């Protein structure tokens, strides 16, 4: 009789131990899973941000490859500044691209003051604003580096003068 009670208690204790162990292991694996999820999701956020940034840069650089901007010489990421000055005199083009703003800035050679380019001061200027429909807030700017080229003459000889520029595209922040 005593042996039976003892065996029964022993079995109960074993069941209790096993259930504690199963619960412990489950909690442990749950914690590991949560930790792994937190790490991988933070990586996912970074990847998503990097991807958005890369797409934005791609949008800006692909715009520089359109016939309205691209240089006559086949060179990648090259914008013809003569075309930009011509575009500024055609306000009908502001609705041609489905973006809120497009401007091209000269970065190198550096200039102390930033001046808007017009027919009167070209090429001694820094910024070409082609489209500017950003009246209110809630816009985001994307940019890509481009070479900003024009035809120049020295002692009667033509040459291609290319500066370093940045094409900035403004879109609605959705």
């Amino acid at each position, binding site marked *: 009789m*005593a042996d039976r009670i*003892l065996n029964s208690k*022993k079995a109960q*204790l074993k069941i209790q*131990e096993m259930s504690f*162990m199963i619960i*412990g*292991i489950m909690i*442990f694996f749950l914690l*590991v899973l949560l*930790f*792994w999820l937190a*790490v991988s999701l933070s*990586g996912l956020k970074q990847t998503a941000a*990097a991807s958005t*940034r*890369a797409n934005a*840069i*791609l949008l800006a*650089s692909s715009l520089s490859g359109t016939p309205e901007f691209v240089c006559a010489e086949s*060179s*990648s*990421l*090259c914008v013809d500044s003569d075309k930009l000055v011509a575009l500024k005199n055609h306000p009908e083009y502001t609705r041609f691209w489905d973006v809120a703003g497009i401007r091209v800035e000269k*970065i*190198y*050679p*550096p200039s102390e003051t930033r001046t808007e380019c017009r027919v009167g001061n070209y090429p001694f200027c820094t910024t070409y604003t082609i489209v500017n429909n950003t009246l209110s807030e809630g816009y985001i700017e994307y940019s*890509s*580096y*481009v*070479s900003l*080229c024009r035809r120049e*003459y*020295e*002692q009667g*000889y033509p*040459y*291609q*003068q*290319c*500066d*370093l*520029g940045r094409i900035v595209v403004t879109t609605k922040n959705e």
Partner: protein
Amino acid sequence: MNKMAMRKLSSKSQQETVGFVVIILMVMVIGTIFLGLSLRKSKPVVAIDAELSNFLIASASITTECAKDYESDYKSLGDVMEYCYSNNRQCYDGRKSCEILNETYRAILGNFRPGGTNLKYYRVSFYFQDSLNESLEDSGIKFTDDIFYGNSSGCSSRRGARNYIPVSGGSLVPDMDLCLELE
């Protein structure tokens, strides 16, 4: 008899508890090793950046002070890189092409602010690579001195890019990595 049985039971449960702790410890050690390995794999030393790639492509086209055959025959930075590779060829005004390459890159990078941030550190190396199938680190040959500024220590994430300029027999590769002041 009862006392003996209880003592036996108690030592058995102690053994089981020790076994349980050993299993948990083993799982934790294996998990930590696995996590460490996966984190090390997913973090490259220098992240390749689209903005920097575009910068290197665009800067290769800019006009330098180096003229070739006559006074106004100004050449692009990419051409100057090729002259520098071709035994540091002289420009029309007698200056060495590698000197102009170095000066122009320094001047451009002095005004370079990726994402509107100043640079804490940059390094540009110039390689010749005869085969694109092999990695630059294995088969690239440096043809001029590096251009660098600042110190890379304490930089948490570095950005980098390369541009491949085709020349006869291979490519000239400006290889840039940098660290932003924010990081």
